[in-house]
């Protein structure tokens, strides 16, 4: 496979992730979409290193601490939700959750005075 083709595949995965982040209505889908963005970034680093900087170790040096930090932060986030929400609060997480919620009043101001 060619370099550009793999890069465009990665771009597609990134776009699926961004689409999911904008469109999803619950917190788990938003987390899954974020994972896809992380996968796309990881693959981009590997592909660039493999095709262009073959004798360099810097991609691995970056990926190991970088991805580890991302996952540990997300682990802390989920653990925080898990510990600090009781049963009823967890039920709240099933309700409408939008990462980016833009309503009409964000553009035109408050319509009820």
């Amino acid at each position, binding site marked *: 496979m060619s370099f550009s083709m793999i890069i465009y595949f990665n771009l597609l995965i990134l*776009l699926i992730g961004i689409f999911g982040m904008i469109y999803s209505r619950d917190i788990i*889908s938003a987390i899954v979409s974020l994972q896809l963005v992380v996968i796309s970034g990881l*693959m981009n680093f590997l592909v660039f290193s493999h095709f262009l900087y073959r004798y360099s*170790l810097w991609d691995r040096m970056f990926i190991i601490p970088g991805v580890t930090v991302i996952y540990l932060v997300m682990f802390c986030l989920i653990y925080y939700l898990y510990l600090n929400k009781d049963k009823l609060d967890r039920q709240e997480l099933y309700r409408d959750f939008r990462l980016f919620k833009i309503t009409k009043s964000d553009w035109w101001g408050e319509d009820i005075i």
Partner: protein
Amino acid sequence: MSSTSQLTMVILNYIGIFGLLISCLLSIFLTYKRKKLLFLFLSFLFTGVLNFVYYSGVLFFVVGLVMMFFFLLLYLFVFQLEVFRGQETTGIKVNLKVSNKDKALDITTALLFCAGFAYFIYIYTSDFLRIAKTAGDSAEILIASWSDIGGQLFAEYGLILIIVAVSLFLSFLWFVAIGGKKK
């Protein structure tokens, strides 16, 4: 590298890329959350296959260890959320129905944003990718081992400082997470 090995690598590359794409699509568009997580996990396995294809198999083990903890916790969390699906124990009535007009507007906005984003990335990278296409494969391959990475890590002191700073930041987050429990 022999031609048989090269063919195997090409086949593995195709399997990894297409498997990754399909499992990513399924993990986004499935509604049942545990299946969603299953396909997300499969997408990480395909990423692992691609790590091996690009001669960075060490990443599969090092990064995979941390990922496993995250996945276990996320799966437990989702499992507990699934118990409360469709139940109203708080007594608060919330209208979860979304009108078709709102749904269409959401999809259109998301698609337009993604199309614009993709257009700009394509415009600004197409020239570079045309030049980079000429970077051919060479016969010599560097397969990174943990000892190479460890050697590089201890040769560059700045990296260790970054890792120490990150560890401090993460332990701060960890103590916030376990210490902030509501009474």
